[in-house]
């Protein structure tokens, strides 16, 4: 046993807080319950064969979705704890240290372990189906991406009960995050959790970039692609260009912390501002990574539920690509107040404003898509309609924030908090929930209940405004972010109280969404047609859920909204082409190696967190062995024979 163990056991488990004991108990109980259920119903084999080893993009998408919802729950509880503490002046619900940990984990989890997997869930579920492909370009890598994310998130979440949570903010600025000011494993958890899941994110970016550019069905030119695929393509471009910067920033900070380097330390010539600089070179594009796919989903939903083609398709494409590129030239607006000079501030202020132009154009295009359409207000459409005013206000405050001298007054105040929650919740979360409701029948074969869904929306949406509009005001009153306590008499009490009430309304909204899922599993309307919304794109041409090979015959595409056109042609009674004969389908084999590989990453990361390098060496050696194994594994694929295909298709009622 390493010597370190002895020293660490006393600090290993977080103690002394009833909340944490409660979590300890519930973690143990839930784990035992899961083990019991799996054993009782003999589901271990099923879990391993069908899920842990799968390389099927649809199942990986579902796992991402579950993880994202769980993390939304954890991040949401963090948010409610914070709002409870801030509800009234001089509250002593949480102490400073605990509050600092909670806002740190809230931010980190919401951005990296909720928003990212949520968009990846949508990537996986929809992209291959929309472009008429049988899987992504690299299914094995896709599984690795998921498990890297999963174990990165798991590692990060361990910090709550083992060793202590990070408490330097989700931005983790040194020197506060550096060793002298932040001993203990919390920051290491942050750095390694993000690093491990970040590798997965880069791989996902590459994977979907290649998939979209190389695996479209014949006839689907780029300009015939559904807009969601365009938004994914744009997001992937940003992932590929932005995430490596985060990798470097985290790695250098980790070297500072565990190997005694001085990149960002306050002492010995380090330059902490360089971390701030690098963090936001990644951080600003990251915002667009999570919001562009939401734009894509809104475009799909608006067109479908207005029964109309999307308006201004080419300017939608142009605006998304413009956003992808310009988002790279705006990062300084996160630290105008650093004083890098009027030249720098002017340049980045103007670049930030410019990005508002293509974004605004998209809003007009969505409105014009609805104009002279036939609008059906279903749950996905409701989230989309809720998004538009939200995003208009959030975008407007974004433009206000980009005015550098005005930003000197907003920076780090609650005005900023209200702004970015409005775009991240109003944009990303609304978008992902719209996508979840929209593609749910495609994933699971039944619809989520509309009535509960609408209740959930109204609670969430109203709660949202009640929560965040007062925060704009309290920002103008001088309240800064990350304060855990404030004195009475500044006029902050009433807006904060209203804000807390709003946060709880949003909590009710989330519970109703969960209730909707639980209710609909049992009673939800079954989708037998595969096209419950009268959709426009190719995924609706398949059964719900689609067979594991997706398309028995790869469709031939000759226009935008390919499935809609096919339906129109059928309606007009035009003769259908004779279907081609079925052929054997080439498929990737499931593999347990991605799972094992990422467990090894987890072990290595855990070793680095506690400076127990024995674990790190074992973990990294296992990683090497897994990579080596893959290099010499030639038994990775198989063919589905025609008879089996015919059998499957017949069972689905399709010939």
């Amino acid at each position: 046993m390493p010597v370190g163990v002895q020293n660490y056991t006393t600090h290993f488990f977080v103690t002394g807080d009833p909340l944490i004991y409660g979590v300890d108990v519930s973690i143990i109980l839930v784990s035992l319950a899961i083990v019991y259920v799996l054993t009782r119903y003999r589901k271990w084999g099923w879990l391993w064969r069908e899920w842990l080893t799968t390389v099927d993009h649809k199942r990986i998408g579902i796992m991402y979705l579950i993880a994202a919802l769980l993390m939304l729950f954890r991040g949401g509880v963090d948010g409610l704890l914070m709002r409870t503490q801030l509800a009234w002046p001089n509250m002593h619900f949480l102490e400073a240290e605990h509050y600092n940990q909670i806002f740190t984990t809230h931010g980190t989890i919401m951005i990296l372990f909720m928003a990212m997997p949520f968009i990846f869930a949508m990537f996986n579920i929809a992209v291959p189906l929309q472009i008429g492909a049988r899987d992504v370009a690299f299914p094995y890598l896709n599984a690795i991406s998921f498990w890297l994310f999963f174990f990165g998130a798991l590692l990060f979440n361990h910090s709550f009960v083992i060793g202590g949570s990070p408490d330097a903010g989700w931005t983790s600025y040194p020197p506060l995050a550096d060793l002298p000011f932040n001993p203990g494993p919390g920051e290491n958890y942050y750095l390694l959790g993000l690093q491990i899941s970040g590798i997965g994110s880069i791989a996902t970016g590459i994977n979907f970039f290649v998939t979209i550019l190389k695996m479209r069905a014949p006839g689907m030119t780029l300009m015939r692609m559904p807009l969601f695929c365009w938004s994914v393509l744009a997001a992937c471009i940003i992932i590929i260009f932005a995430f490596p910067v985060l990798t470097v920033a985290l790695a250098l900070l980790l070297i500072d912390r565990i190997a005694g380097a001085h990149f960002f330390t306050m002492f010995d010539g380090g330059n902490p501002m360089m971390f701030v600089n690098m963090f936001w070179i990644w951080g600003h594009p990251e915002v667009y990574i999570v919001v562009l796919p939401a734009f894509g989903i809104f475009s799909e939903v608006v067109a479908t539920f207005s029964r109309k083609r999307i308006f201004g398709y080419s300017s939608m494409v142009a605006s998304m690509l413009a956003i992808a590129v310009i988002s790279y030239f705006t990062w300084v607006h996160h630290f105008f107040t650093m004083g890098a000079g009027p030249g720098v501030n002017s340049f980045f202020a103007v670049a930030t404003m410019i990005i508002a132009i293509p974004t605004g154009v998209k809003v007009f295009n969505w409105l014009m898509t609805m104009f002279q359409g036939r609008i059906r207000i279903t749950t996905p459409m409701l989230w989309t309609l809720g998004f538009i005013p939200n995003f208009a206000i959030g975008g407007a405050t974004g433009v206000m924030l980009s005015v550098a001298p005005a930003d000197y007054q907003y920076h780090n105040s609650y005005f900023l908090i209200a702004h970015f929650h409005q775009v991240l919740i109003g944009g990303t979360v609304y978008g992902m929930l719209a996508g979840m409701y929209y593609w749910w029948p495609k994933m699971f074969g039944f619809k989520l209940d509309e009535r509960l869904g609408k209740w959930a929306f109204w609670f969430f949406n109203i709660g949202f405004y009640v929560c965040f509009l007062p925060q704009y005001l309290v920002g103008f009153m001088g309240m800064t972010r990350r304060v855990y306590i404030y004195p009475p008499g500044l006029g902050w009490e009433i807006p904060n109280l209203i804000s807390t009430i709003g946060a709880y309304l949003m909590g009710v909204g989330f519970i109703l969404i969960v209730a909707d899922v639980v209710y609909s599993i049992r009673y939800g309307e079954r989708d037998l047609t595969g096209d419950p919304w009268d959709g426009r794109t190719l995924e609706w041409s398949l059964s719900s859920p689609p067979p594991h090979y997706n398309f028995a015959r790869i469709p031939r595409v000759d226009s935008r909204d390919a499935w809609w056109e096919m339906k129109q042609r059928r309606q007009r009674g035009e003769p259908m082409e004779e279907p081609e004969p079925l052929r054997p389908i080439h498929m990737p084999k499931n593999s347990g190696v991605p799972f094992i590989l990422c467990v090894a990453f987890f072990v290595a990361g855990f070793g680095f967190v506690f400076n127990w390098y024995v674990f790190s060496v074992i973990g990294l050696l296992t990683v090497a062995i897994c990579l080596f194994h893959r290099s010499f594994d030639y038994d990775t694929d198989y063919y589905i024979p025609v008879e089996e295909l015919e059998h499957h298709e017949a069972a689905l009622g399709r010939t």
Partner: protein
Amino acid sequence: MEAVHGDLHTAAVRDVPLEHTTEDGQLRIFGFWIFIVSDLILFSTLFATFAVLRTHVAGGPGPAQLFDVGAFTAETLILLIFTVVYLPGVM
């Protein structure tokens, strides 16, 4: 291993190099290029860090003391020569 879209590539690929003749190969090569692009950014961030922190040695040794011209010249030349050592095998 990837799902192949029928025989998209029988006639057209006659003139492209060997490694592009399967769809699997095409995807891998393209993916590899995109990976190189992400690496480009990774290294440029390291270069940027170097450029900014270059003078912050806090009294420690600077580049002049750290780099051994003879050694890195030899290393570079060995690296470059390795790009052609496989040629006799191909010829």
